[in-house]
């Protein structure tokens, strides 16, 4: 089953002044349970593609279907709802809420969804256990290392059981050990729980461990390689 389906995706910035073709007819399908890295040099369009897949930006043309829903025509508010329920985000620079504890950050999206407390507590305990941060649940992000913060971001993204996780350069700010540890956790979640991960990255540590590597060049798909 396709989680993400992009057909002839085009994105032109400044169409009326100095047009910049960020995406030029991208066709991409990502199936449930994939562990895919979208790679490419700066300006190749990978962040634009990720933003459109994540409902943060709209294509100029083409079709983008996420978990069966055509999202290009949704209103801003519908997109917010959609992202909240269907997509888990992990950003480059952790992006945790500094005034909330690890547990509160993890349950944040579930709170937005008004899930019952018992369910939230159970899910938070499970997730912190799986990212190895159970003992840190009551501390604030500022008391964690970069790698630990990124693990909390993964736990937060997973909490509402989204259709897939979009990770934009998740290891860019991490040292080797932390990056390796984070990738171990993501791989394990992918392998054991079938969670779909889509990365935008140019970190070779991520590329090496991805099962599929899609390379973007000048807004077009250059290569699409399945690795073993």
């Amino acid at each position, binding site marked *: 089953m396709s989680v993400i389906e992009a057909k002839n995706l085009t994105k032109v910035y400044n169409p009326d002044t100095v047009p910049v073709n960020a995406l030029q007819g991208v066709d991409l399908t990502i199936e449930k349970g994939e562990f895919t890295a979208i790679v490419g040099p700066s300006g190749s369009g990978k962040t634009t593609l990720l933003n459109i897949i994540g409902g*943060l*930006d709209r294509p100029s043309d083409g079709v983008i279907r996420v978990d069966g829903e055509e999202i290009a025509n949704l209103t801003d508010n519908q997109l917010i709802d959609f992202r909240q329920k269907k997509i888990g985000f992990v*950003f480059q620079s952790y992006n945790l809420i500094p005034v909330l504890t690890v547990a509160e950050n993890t349950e944040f999206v579930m709170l937005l969804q008004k899930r019952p407390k018992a369910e939230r507590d159970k899910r938070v305990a499970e997730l912190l256990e799986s990212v190895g941060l159970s003992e840190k649940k009551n501390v604030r992000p500022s008391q964690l290392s970069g790698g630990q913060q990124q693990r909390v971001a993964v736990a937060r993204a997973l909490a509402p059981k989204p259709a897939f996780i979009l990770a934009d350069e998740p290891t860019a700010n991490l040292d080797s050990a932390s990056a390796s540890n984070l990738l171990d956790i993501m791989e394990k979640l992918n392998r054991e729980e079938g969670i779909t991960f889509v990365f935008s990255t140019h970190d070779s540590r991520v590329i090496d461990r991805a099962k599929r590597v899609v390379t973007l060049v000048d807004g077009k798909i250059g290569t699409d390689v399945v690795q073993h």
Partner: protein
Amino acid sequence: MRNVTLHLTPHPFFLIPEKMFLKLAWRNLWRNKRRTIISISSVLFAVLFASVISSFQKGTWDHMVDNVVRYYLGYAQIHQNGFWDDQSLENSFDPQSVPASLQSEMQLTPRLESFALASSGEVTRGVLVVGIDPEKEDEMTRLKSRLTQGQYLEMNGSTVLVAEGLASLLNLKVADTLILVSQGYQGRNAAGAYPIGGMVKFGAPDLNKQLVIMPLPLARDFYGTGERLTSLAVNLPGRDALPEALQVLNKELPADEFEVMDFKKLMPELIEAQELDTAGAKLILWTLYLLIGFGLFGTILMMTRERTYEFGVLTAIGTKRKTLIGMLWSETLMIGIVGAVLGILISIPIVWYLHVSPIELTGNMAKAYENYGIEPVIKTAFEMGIFLKQAWVISLISCGLAIYPTWYIWNLKPVKAMRE
């Protein structure tokens, strides 16, 4: 366009995320402790200053008006309809027509007032003659305390009191005789010679130069009015009792026969002066609020702009705009409300102290007050309304300022915000 159809686990209605966002808003305030403390302090001092100034202003005027009211007029007066516009004896009334129940229910001070010519030797002056019930009048206006020479009046006595200024103009002393000539009730001649029993001093020059006070029976006899009166002054313990008293008076007195006037109608010029002074003070307070508003806006502007990236992320992960707006409104209102509450809590004991222990005036200022029969003190009014008004104004300003973050979040684009 297709709608997103999503199914969530049912949840009890009381699990609202707003609680979490109030907690988040409170914690956000303390991310920059120094800035929050400065902002709260500025609101605190504005509320403190405004409360104390407003209490002083209201207290001083109330004190002055109360003194003037007690000095002569009373908090309210009952007249024959039309008397205030045409103050002649033809507009006097028979006190028997005032319901007996009213007379027993309220303390009413009877007066018969008219004008006359007073002469002594070669000098003649126009005077205001007031017939009074000496005991009731003293209870209400403490007339006896103004006696500077001689004896106070007796109800059935035949002597009169003359204001010191008038006595001086007519070269009169205690035990001299004052000749009065006037037109009495229904055009009859009024003339009489009255021994001066004592002198009284009034701070108000107008009264001090023209007042002759005599017992009510003597005044009735002089003007030939029979039992008639020109006014009944209503003696009340304070202005708080006025609204209820007016209600009773208006209910029990026939509107086509009597006019009931409160002190605001009896001395409109004083009330206008108070309103003018109050308007000036309000201008100062609003200038203060404007300054505080700008200070708070600076804080809100920083609180909003410096978290643009964070708001972008929160929107990206599914936080609705209205939730973020609610959080920022809470932060803005919290600064205002915490500052206002602290300001009120600090100002209450200060205002209370100055209410029960007024500042006593000395020197020429004190003499000037005393001359006008006003106790030479400056005191604050202790009214919860004054404090609540400050809280209300601050809340209003905070709500006004919260429009900026509302506009900012409403127009926030997550991708653009996360680039900052």
